Structure formats: structure tokens, C-alpha cells
């Protein structure tokens, strides 16, 4: 009987860069036999121990708790100590490159400067704000329901995987990003906390807050602890309306304005949502696009008048009208 081969000979590529001595980053290749149970962290250890002692990366706990070893492999965020290597070799046809979470923040090889991550994390007050008696007579108990309300937000290990997978952050430096926003939710949802309005206000700010999330779900995919940051961002959106923090602006009118069209036709009214969200003064920005859309027939003309009576109605529209009337829980 032939022996079952448990290892695979591959060439692992790694991003190399030392900010103190190198002008430019480069890629180095390392040949090794990879076993079926080896983790990406094992591969990094072997590069350091068997090939090049100068190869640098962060590591500590080795069981998915400290959050130090988050890197990217072919653009996919992974926690090196949780990610099986063969799984990734299979996915990427045995061609994998180890990269830091954010190349532009690389200090040495896999090690990045996470200053922006920590600054943003700190900005949402990621702690319970409360007047706590320093010598309590009784415990400050939380019920199971109260704990469950935090959802999975408490599991965050601040590894930065979601933060550096977020495309909105890449374009918009001001954006707080998924990790900070998930932390904001975690403490806002805690019944012992007294900074609800404050934190909802911080996360409402246009440019930095939840309304700048592009809804790509990269964060949900990147998180090694299933925190699902975008779900928490959604909860913050809802809470901003519930607590009256959401004031009328282009973003909130855009969310609430969907119902205007739905009450009339069952569909979103694509022209009305832009007019209503932007306000008539803000519409001038869209005139050029609107003209192009009319020319191509994307905005329909009905009896020579654009925007009017051009939307069909759904069947049984009265059901939607009734359901909105009896199910709506928030107001703008």
C-alpha cells in the first residue's frame, strides 16, 4: 500500500520591506513542504526559523485571542494563527503571497503601524461610561437578555482585519471604519452605559460615521471572530433614528425617503429619492447626469413630462400601504 502524502511542496511568496533601510518593498520566495494541519502562522515561523531570521511579524497567543497576527494572503484578511495553509493553497492554486494587512502602513515585513486603527477605536469611547460606586455592596448583574443584546460585538480582538479590508477607509481617511463602529455599538448597547446619545452622535457625523459605510460586507467576510461589523453598523443606523439623533440630511432622507415612493407605487421612486434626499437646491449637481439618463431613456418620459406618472404600480398596493402603516417603528 502506498503511503498517503500529507504534505505539499510549494513556493510561498512574502512581501518584504524594512522602512528603516529599504527604499521599496520586494517579494521573496521560500520553498517548503506544507503539512495538512499547518497554519499560516506556522509558515511564517518556518520562514523565520529555517530561511531568514530577519523576517518580521507580530505573534503572541497562537490561539486567536490576542489579535496580533492578522495579515493578508492574496488580498484575503486572515488571522495567521487560525487559518489553515492548505485551505488557502487550494483556493489560490498553490500560489500565495503573504502580505501585511495594509501595505502602505508597513513598518517591517508583516508589521504595520496601526496608529490610525487605535485612534479611531479610542474616538468612539470604547468603554462603559457610568458613575460606578467604587465600593459596591452588591454585584452589578447583567441578565442573559442584556448580554445577548450586545450580539457578537464583544468578541472583537482588535486585530484590524476588518479595518484594513474596508474600501471606504482606503478612500476616506476620516471614516471611523468597521472595528471602531462595532465597538461603538458594543458599548452603546450595554445597559450599564450612560453615553448612548454621545456615542450615537459621534457615529452619526457625516464623513466619519456610519453613513459613509459603502455596504460592501468586506468587514463581515474579513472578521476572524464573526463579529459581523456591518450588522452593528446597521444597528447604529436604527438606534440613531430611535433616539432622535438622526437629523434630516441627505443620508437620512435617502434612507427614510424610500417609503415615499413605496407608499405611492410599491416601488422606490428613483427620481424622487434623489430630489427628496438632496433637496431642490442640491439637485443642480445631478442635472448633467439626469440629462444623459433622459437621452438614453433611463429616465422615462410620459406625455413629454419626465418624472411624472412614469412608474408602474405593483398589484395589491394597498397591502404595502397598510403594512407600512402598522409596522413602521421609526420616524425621521
Amino acid at each position, binding site marked *: 500500500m502506498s503511503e498517503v502524502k500529507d504534505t505539499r511542496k510549494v513556493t510561498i511568496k512574502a512581501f518584504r520591506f524594512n522602512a528603516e533601510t529599504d527604499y521599496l518593498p520586494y517579494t521573496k520566495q521560500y520553498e517548503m513542504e506544507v503539512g495538512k494541519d499547518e497554519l499560516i502562522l506556522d509558515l511564517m515561523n518556518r520562514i523565520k526559523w529555517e530561511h531568514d531570521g530577519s523576517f518580521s511579524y507580530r505573534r503572541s497567543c497562537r490561539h486567536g485571542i490576542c489579535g496580533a497576527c492578522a495579515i493578508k494572503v*492574496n*488580498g484575503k484578511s486572515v488571522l495567521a494563527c487560525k487559518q489553515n495553509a492548505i485551505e488557502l493553497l487550494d*483556493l*489560490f492554486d498553490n500560489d500565495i503571497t503573504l502580505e501585511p494587512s495594509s501595505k502602505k502602513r508597513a513598518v517591517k515585513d508583516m508589521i504595520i503601524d496601526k496608529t490610525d486603527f487605535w485612534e479611531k477605536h479610542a474616538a468612539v469611547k470604547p468603554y462603559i461610561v457610568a458613575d460606578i460606586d467604587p465600593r459596591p455592596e452588591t454585584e452589578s448583574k447583567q441578565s442573559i437578555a442584556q448580554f445577548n443584546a450586545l450580539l457578537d460585538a464583544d468578541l472583537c480582538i482588535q486585530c484590524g482585519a476588518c479595518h484594513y479590508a474596508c*474600501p*471606504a477607509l482606503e*478612500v*476616506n481617511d476620516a*471614516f471611523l471604519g468597521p472595528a471602531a463602529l462595532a465597538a461603538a455599538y458594543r458599548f452603546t448597547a450595554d445597559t450599564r452605559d450612560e453615553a448612548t446619545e454621545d456615542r450615537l452622535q459621534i457615529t452619526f457625523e*457625516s464623513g466619519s460615521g456610519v*453613513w*459613509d*459605510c*459603502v*455596504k*460592501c*460586507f*468586506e468587514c463581515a*467576510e474579513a472578521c476572524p471572530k464573526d463579529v*459581523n461589523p456591518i450588522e452593528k453598523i*446597521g444597528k447604529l*443606523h*436604527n438606534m440613531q433614528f430611535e433616539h432622535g439623533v438622526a437629523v434630516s440630511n*441627505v*443620508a*437620512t432622507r*435617502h*434612507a427614510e425617503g*424610500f417609503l415615499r*415612493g*413605496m407608499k405611492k407605487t*410599491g*416601488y*422606490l421612486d*428613483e427620481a424622487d429619492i*434623489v430630489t427628496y*434626499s*438632496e433637496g431642490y437646491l442640491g439637485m443642480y449637481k445631478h442635472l*448633467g*447626469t439626469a440629462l*444623459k*439618463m433622459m*437621452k*438614453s*431613456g*433611463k429616465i422615462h418620459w410620459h406625455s413629454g413630462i419626465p418624472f411624472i406618472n*412614469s412608474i408602474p404600480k*405593483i*398589484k*395589491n398596493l394597498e397591502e*404595502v400601504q*397598510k*403594512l*407600512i402603516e*402598522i*409596522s*413602521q*417603528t*421609526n420616524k*425621521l
Partner: protein
Amino acid sequence: MSEQLHYALFTGCTAKQSTPELLSSTLAVADKLGIKITILEEASCCGASHIQDFDEFLAHVLNARNICYAEKLGLTMITICNTCQLNSAMTKHALDTDPELKARVNEKLAEVGLEYKGTSEIKHFLYTLIDEYGLENVKDKVEVPLSHLNIAPFYGCHNIRPSELHEDANGHENPYKPTSLDSLIDALEGNPVNYESKNKCCGFHVELQANHTSEVLAGNALLDAIDNNADMMVTPCPLCHLKMDTYQDSIGKVMGRDVELPVLHMPQMVALALGCTEKEIGLNFHVQKAKHLYTAS
């Protein structure tokens, strides 16, 4: 195929308004392939994640109502928009896994004589073509091979992420290395363009409130496709289409480069290869000129 495939089509809002070419090409493709389609004329907007931001419970009630109509027909509900797919599937998942929420939603639906049961699957048309109709069968029907076209597949976030939600409906597509659109292009004998941005975000959802972010994300993807020699881009999502087709002038200004690339809906590309009519394919509805892609006569 022994039995004719029959689906309940959830059109979404854009196919009924700004992208009529999406609906006409979908129906033309289904007709050519012998797939029976019943349009859910009762279905309303899915909320597009924006009603969800405003009022999550209301969004679940409205989406559950849409699904009820597919359940009444005993059919799989198919979508032709990634965001419709995501929001319908999120409601289905929430209701199927949370009996208390399902009961609260059904209490509302009872007021209009409906009940959500959870009996219908929800699948994007792209994946029914691949998993249920079969790419080999699509290949057999090709009349106008697309071998003269370099086609950049743009997957759109909401069909591939979050992967755990979609894996049963999208053939376990890996969001870091999606292959479905590439293999569809292959089946139509087109040349799939390999480029890094194929699984990235187009920025549509923040078009109004974070315009710069939106334009740069769309610009990065369009220019990546152009730099990799694409003749056209194809997407299963009409929202990606709207962002990337309609705004190329303003995107070009933000990016400091000319951006000119036709962006087709997935069914339009299939319709081109199956020899559907020019009217059905509807390339005239594009802002970025695309009519030259229709070569059959």
C-alpha cells in the same frame, strides 16, 4: 432537461424604471432557453439596505410579503439584482432562524391575509443558469459566440458577501476568488478579463451622501478593467450597472482620466450570444455607448 424550469421573478425597482433593458433581456434569455418565468407583479421594493437602515423590522415585513407571493406559487424566487437578492435572503434567513421574529412579522402579514412560511428558495438568475439550467446547456444554445470580446466580469458585493448567507444559493462562490461570471463568459465563448477589482465595491450605495468615495471606488474598478484590455464590463447587479454606466463622465473627472467602457447587465450579455433581438437587448438604454456590441443582423 426532463422538466421545464419555472421561476417566480422578483424584478426589483430598477428593472421597472431606469433599466428596462434588464427586464427585457432577462425575459428574452429565459424564452430562448425555455425557462418559464412568472413575474411577481405584487412584489414591492426590497428596501435596498436603506429602509433597513431606517427601520429594520419594517424592512423584514415588506420583504417577507414579497416572498409570500413566491411561496403561494410554490416556486423558487429568482432575483436579477444583487441587492434585492441580499435583502430578500437576509429576511428569509432572519425569519427562518428566529421563530419569535417570524411570529411578529406574521402577525403584521395576517392583517393583509398573508403568511410567511419559509418554503421558497431565493436565488439570483445568474446562479440558476449555472446550477439548474447548466452551462453546458447554455453553451449549446449559443448562436453568436462572443469570441471577439474581452469581457471584464464585475461580480457586485451582494451576491458574494456575506458568503455564509449566500453559500446555498450561489454554489459556494468564494468571495475572494469568484468564478461564476467567468465561467458564464467562457460558455458564451467570450474572453474573461482577469483583473483585481472584479470582486470589489462599486460605491453605488453612497452615491448621494459620500460622492467622492463612490466615484473613486467605481473609477478604480472601471480603470482596472480598461487597463486589462476589456472591451466591456458585465455585472449581475443593475445598481453596479447604474453607478458604472451612468457616471463615467464624472468618474473620469475625479480620476483624472477618460473612462469609456460599456457596462452590460448579465442577461444582456447572454442575450447577445443567444441571438436575441436588438430591441430585447436594449443597448440603446445605456449612457455609455454600447450599441456597437450588437453585431448580429
